[in-house]
């Protein structure tokens, strides 16, 4: 029998259930490996989402840059990172968005965690 899933607040375990839910969303973000796809998205975001068959909730989370919403809707961080890149956001920007911190606050948290403080 599969192991029971741990309860880790603030963590979205990307397993079969979420991966089913997020398939279209992730497929769209995977397309962002290609510059033509990135340009098509930027030219008309909503139409590009529709082309991949995103759900309303997924589309809204994309348009709102709502990273937590995207994770709840089945986004995988690997493909969401490509969406972030398209928005010129790096991993500290994304961390700040998800934790509700400023980017400087998030970086300071990383520094403290890294120093073992």
């Amino acid at each position, binding site marked *: 029998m599969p192991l029971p899933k741990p309860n880790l607040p603030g963590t979205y375990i990307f*397993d079969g259930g979420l991966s089913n839910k997020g398939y279209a969303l992730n497929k769209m973000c995977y397309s962002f490996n290609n510059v033509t796809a990135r340009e098509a998205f930027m030219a008309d975001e909503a139409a590009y989402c529709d082309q991949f068959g995103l759900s309303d909730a997924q589309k809204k989370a994309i348009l709102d840059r709502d990273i937590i919403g995207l994770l709840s809707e089945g986004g995988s961080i690997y493909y969401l990172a490509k969406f972030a890149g398209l928005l010129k956001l*790096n991993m500290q920007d994304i961390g700040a968005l998800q934790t509700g911190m400023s980017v400087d606050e998030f970086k300071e948290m990383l520094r403290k965690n*890294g120093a073992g403080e």
Partner: protein
Amino acid sequence: MAKIIGAVTTSHIPAIGMAMDNKLEQTPYWKPFFDAYPPVRAWLNEKKPDVVVIFYNDHGLEFFLDRKPTFAIGTAAQYLNADEGWGINTIPPVTGETELSWHIATDLVENEFDITICQEMRVDHGLTVPLSLMWPGHAYGHVKVIPVCINCERYPMPTPARCFKLGQAIGRAIESFDQDLNVVLFGTGGLSHQLDGERAGFINREFDIDCMNKIVTAPEELTKLSNYDLMEIGGAQGVELNMWLAMRGALTGNITELHRNYHAPISNTGAGLLLLEHEH
């Protein structure tokens, strides 16, 4: 016979490649990280391995969720890097080593490892950043590369114990190969980090240092952990430790630690560097 002469563990995050693209190595943020690499480069330049087996994970360049292998191995004569979507420069083609690759792949399948075999595959930053770090200026042209790719993204993922066993089988396969080749292994990725969710920014320095110690002296202890344990103690992407464990499994002889560095944070991660010499 082919011989595994040593191994390196290293981070592979894209930010490193982008820092090199932008020549930031000596800025205050990056200096404590990059200054640890020259001894490893010197060792590689002295030992001149013929082949490097790189344990890494694909982050959505070659593989998508449609058909995602648990384990994959490349058997191609050449591997291309490509646009990953967020601006890291691509690197020139990487040379493969077809004969030893097929030998390993065949041995693995006969020993009940159900690996996906790739005669053509694009390699992402998980593999290219370590190459850039070890041979700056794309000076890796003389080295033949065998990519071994492990799913670290979507559950179910191979367990730490299974990854270690994969490494053991690869080690045995290499050392039964009937050509005089010197082989080095790279275990890439890690250490503790979490990119996603409200828990993003998680780093566990104590765990990372413990991992580095145990990788050298007591890797079996790490194989008792589950992926969920790793996720809890090392963050959601802490499961990249599996690539270190696969590398370590292949070192079945005696190892000597020649060099180490730990620095955190690098971007959102704890970055561990180890240089291990290996002999029977």
